[in-house]
């Protein structure tokens, strides 16, 4: 099927690539279908695009790029909802909020997106964990190039 995307124009996607978020995402409770579109071959960023609304897309990244030892417990409820059978089927993504001054961009470590990549089911879970912030600064200051 063909969908309109925010960042890549019209795209042909396979229906089997659509990830279902049964209760949407906080703030976007009515959007249940998303596809993952890598930003580029070399890029760690993945755009999570709404199938229903071309304007809604999130820039995401796997937490391993951002922080060491990111860990949380997936609740029994989430495990059931997402029909998770094995850990290797789980993909974790964190949403990035880009700022005009790009260095000030942040990642939401408090609300990771948990995806069962095998069964294409997803959910944004909210961790009440003081270690992980909603706005975690992700970028190192760019080093000045010596002349």
């Amino acid at each position, binding site marked *: 099927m063909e969908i309109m995307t925010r960042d890549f124009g019209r795209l042909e996607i396979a229906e089997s690539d659509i990830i279902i978020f049964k209760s949407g995402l906080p703030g976007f409770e009515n959007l249940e279908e998303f596809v993952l579109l890598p930003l580029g071959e*070399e890029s760690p960023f993945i755009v999570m695009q709404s199938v229903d609304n071309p304007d809604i897309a*999130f820039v995401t990244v796997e937490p391993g790029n*951002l922080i060491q030892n990111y860990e949380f417990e997936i609740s029994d409820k989430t495990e059931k909802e997402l029909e998770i059978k094995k850990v290797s089927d789980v993909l974790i993504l964190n949403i990035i909020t880009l700022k*005009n001054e*790009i260095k000030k961009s942040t990642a939401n470590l408090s*609300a990771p997106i948990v995806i069962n990549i095998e069964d294409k089911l997803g959910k944004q879970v*909210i961790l009440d964990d003081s270690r992980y912030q*909603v706005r975690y600064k992700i970028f190192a200051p760019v080093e000045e190039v010596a002349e």
Partner: protein
Amino acid sequence: MLVLTRKLNEKIVIDERIEITVVGIENGKVQLGIEAPQEIEIMRKELLEDVKEENKKAVKNKKLLEELNNIKFKL
């Protein structure tokens, strides 16, 4: 909205399966103990609101995408 007054260590029960106990009252703070079945999600409301707001901000990123490739992560 139902408003109840409870003293320290007193409880309320919701739907015969969620029990909330006042476990501490100190300096304008109330500490609550909540016992509920696992399928009940419990979180501080301001955290949920914060995540909603952040999600709404995060979708306004379009024009900044190209710049991303020029930046190094902290790690």
